[in-house]
């Protein structure tokens, strides 16, 4: 079953399933009189317009965003406004003149169908790209993005139908353009919050400032923005449908020739089917809304559960549509005995529900609390306050000790604080609960890597690759692990497989660069990093690596630029140390810049003593004495030797470099640096000897 659900073949039907439900809603809103062929034509036009937008966007490579468009530009200029324009162009120029479009009802429902076609195409592509996580994405989009698109289309169709009733041709355009701008802005607001919440783009400072002004966490404000956009469009769609039944529009009734309908059509259009579906949609959504509202009221920072409300808005709107715009006349008044029975039945059901909540409701409530506390932990993590994040995860795990998300995130936070033993315990527990999760295995392998347990790294990655053999990053990570145990043949084989699976994967390109450098191929290593930076211009780790390669090649100017750029993103002090060395090689005075960085450093962690040594505040011996582990001592040797090299003390520097090359772990940049510098010194010594011989 799990294999089936992870299969991409199961993903596409799931992507289309929500379309079936929404198509049924359209048919009911059409009261059986909406032509099926018009529905098909509208869906087709929607798919065409959706593809056109995707194709027109492709040259801008928004996924990698090499042009550095801001999230506002992407949301407004590339998503909201053009997508709504495409839909309205399709409705106005292709559907409006279509021969089966007979009245305003047909036009509005055809516009909704067009938007549904557009949304389903987008849904299939997104779900296909989600890999094995498609299930969660399919559910989220079924509750939010797909109906959101359809309701936007419905409202746009209403605006065009209303504009068609204007007296003059000129008079209709201001209405249509105003509707387009309004719908485009709503769409963009939804997309903007989604981009920022998914972390696809760094939130612009204005988001933080507005959130602060409102006294909310940025994530909470973004969820509120998304919720607002969804709520507004749902209300607009409902009002559009309500107005369609009133003058100046003509009310459309269900065809009188009911005998011509097949039995299944009669069932689908029956009031009972609508009531059942509406209850199924509205009841759980209302419960979710009530719970998220209660959290907002009862729990400190309880707005963190707004995401639950986000998923509830569109189903409620769809349920209200089913109830408020039925294709058949209302039920006849029930006999008194039936009504009494229903009343007593309701009392009994309420009693049973209370009992069930008391008996079985506690754990779901605790799960929700755990989810809420985990969200708070993530917010602290994003601010860099890992201690506070761990406290939040502790509270989450007190509510539900098996809450995987909290376990994994606490493990990651512990790793950030270099408490690797605690991190390992968290990931061990998480993997015990979810042994087939490749992401958890990968994260645990990173902890093992920090503990220099190379064989444990390989064991975890072996298992992860067994589960997710198409992940290029996993193969690249294992290549790196094989390199650390000096099994170069396996490392090369793994990196070749990783390249086949993801030729632009940043991790693969970085590991490939390290592998090439190991063979002394600096040019090749540089090319791999260039390829990475071409595909991912903001990859700070790649910039840092390329800076070091420039330095080994005696190009301190280029090195300094890369170190500066990477130092703006990477939070640790190492890029600043290397920027110092590049600056010294350029003949600059690099001390002021490093001093500024040092004053901004909030903790006294390693390699702070090295920086203080570079600034002349302590000696090399004192810096080495400040090191608490072998890893730190090897780094102290390396940086002291590098500083000697910059000062022209080549021979005194050599022993330090040799010690670093021997003692530093293979995956350390200092190991790589010591070997590169020794190669350079050897090369220079040979050249000098040859020159002397001549």
């Amino acid at each position, binding site marked *: 079953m799990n294999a089936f659900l992870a299969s991409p073949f199961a993903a596409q039907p799931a992507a289309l399933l929500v379309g079936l439900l929404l198509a049924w809603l359209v048919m009911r809103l059409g009261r059986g009189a909406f032509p099926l062929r018009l529905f098909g034509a509208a869906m087709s036009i929607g798919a065409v317009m959706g593809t056109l937008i995707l194709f027109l966007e492709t040259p801008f490579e928004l996924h990698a965003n090499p042009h550095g468009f801001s999230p506002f530009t992407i949301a407004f200029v590339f998503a909201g406004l053009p997508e709504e324009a495409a839909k309205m162009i399709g409705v106005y120029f292709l559907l409006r003149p279509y021969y089966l479009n007979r009245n305003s009802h047909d036009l509005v429902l055809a516009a909704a169908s067009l938007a549904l076609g557009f949304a389903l195409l987008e849904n299939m*592509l997104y779900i296909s790209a989600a890999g094995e996580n498609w299930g969660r994405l399919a559910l989220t989009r079924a509750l939010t993005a797909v109906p959101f698109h359809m309701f936007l289309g419905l409202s746009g169709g209403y605006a065009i139908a209303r504009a068609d009733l204007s007296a003059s041709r000129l008079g209709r355009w201001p209405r249509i353009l105003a509707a387009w701008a309004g719908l485009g802005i709503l769409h963009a607001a939804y997309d903007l919050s989604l981009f920022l919440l998914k972390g696809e783009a760094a939130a612009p400072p204005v988001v933080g400032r507005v959130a602060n002004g409102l006294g909310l966490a940025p994530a909470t404000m973004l969820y509120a923005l998304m919720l607002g956009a969804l709520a507004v469009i749902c209300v607009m769609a409902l009002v559009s449908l309500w107005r369609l039944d009133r003058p100046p529009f003509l009310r459309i009734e269900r065809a009188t020739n009911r005998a011509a309908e097949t039995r299944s059509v009669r069932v689908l259009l029956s009031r009972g089917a609508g009531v059942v579906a509406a209850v199924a949609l509205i009841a759980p959504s209302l419960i979710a809304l009530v719970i998220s509202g209660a959290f907002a009221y009862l729990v400190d920072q309880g707005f963190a559960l707004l995401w639950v409300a986000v998923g509830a808005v569109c189903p409620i709107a769809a349920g209200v549509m089913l109830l408020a715009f039925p294709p058949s006349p209302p039920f006849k008044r029930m006999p008194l005995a039936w009504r009494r029975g229903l009343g007593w039945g309701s009392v009994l059901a309420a009693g049973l529900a209370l009992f069930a909540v008391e008996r079985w409701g506690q754990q779901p409530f605790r799960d929700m609390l755990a989810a809420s506390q985990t969200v708070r932990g993530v917010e602290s993590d994003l601010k860099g306050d890992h201690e506070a994040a761990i406290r939040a995860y502790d509270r989450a795990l007190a509510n539900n000790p098996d809450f995987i998300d909290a376990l994994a995130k606490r493990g990651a936070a512990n790793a950030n604080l270099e408490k690797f033993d605690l991190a390992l315990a968290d990931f061990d527990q998480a993997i015990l609960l979810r042994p087939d999760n490749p992401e958890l295995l990968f994260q645990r392998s990173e902890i093992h890597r920090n503990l220099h347990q190379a064989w444990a790294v390989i064991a975890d990655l072996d298992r992860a690759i067994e589960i997710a053999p198409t992940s290029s990053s996993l193969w690249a990570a294992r290549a790196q692990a094989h390199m650390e145990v000096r099994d170069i043949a396996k490392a090369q084989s793994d990196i070749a497989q990783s390249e086949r699976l993801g030729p632009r994967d940043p991790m693969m390109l970085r590991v490939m660069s390290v592998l090439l450098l190991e063979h002394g191929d600096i040019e090749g290593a540089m090319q791999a990093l260039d390829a990475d930076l071409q595909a991912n211009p903001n990859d700070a780790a790649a910039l840092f690596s390329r800076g070091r390669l420039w330095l080994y090649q005696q190009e301190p100017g280029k090195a300094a630029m890369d170190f500066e750029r990477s130092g703006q993103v990477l939070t640790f002090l190492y890029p600043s140390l290397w920027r110092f060395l590049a600056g010294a090689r350029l003949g600059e005075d690099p001390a002021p810049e490093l001093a500024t960085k040092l004053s901004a450093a909030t903790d006294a962690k390693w390699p702070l003593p090295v920086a203080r040594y570079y600034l002349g505040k302590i000696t090399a011996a004192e810096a080495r004495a400040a090191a608490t582990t072998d890893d730190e001592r090897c780094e102290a040797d390396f940086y002291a030797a590098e500083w000697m090299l910059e000062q022209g003390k080549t021979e005194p520097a050599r022993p330090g470099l040799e010690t670093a090359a021997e003692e530093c772990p293979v995956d350390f940049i200092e190991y790589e640096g010591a070997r590169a510098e020794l190669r350079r010194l050897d090369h220079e010594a040979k050249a000098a000897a040859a020159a002397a011989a001549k």
Partner: protein
Amino acid sequence: MSETESAMSPPDPEASERRDMALFTQRNLEKFLPLHDTIAAGRSAFSVCWPGLVFPQAWFLYRKMYGWAAFACVTPLLVTSIHAFGGYGNVLAYAPALAAISGRRLYVGGARRTIARIRAAEPDEAAAEDVIRRAGGVSIAGAVIGALFFIAAVSIGSRTGVYVGLKTAP
């Protein structure tokens, strides 16, 4: 034959069908009528549709064949983006070209079915003719959208080397 005789005689179904086809097609009737006649005679018919082959999306949209237009637009995108198709994706991406080369045959077949449906649903002659005229004809807006699509597709094709396909989902 006298005028009275002419008015009394039943309408010729073949001529009526040809008139409906002319109403439906409106432009370039001479390209479609021979196909229509062959099909009406119960024989199989085919004619290479060069504009359809070169500009499939634009031609289908121009001729208001929205279902086929969607097929031509979406197929290359989906088969190259959905991993389930694996290496067959790039081959399947050419399926719309096969459909487009027989575009005229598809058009005439679709037109005949649409006309038959309209005739069955609309007893009034004038109203039926009006609906047939609206159902057929060409869409300039469709052609413009199709041309935009063609330009975008050629631009992508020249960058990726794949026929209007995307290697990864955007």
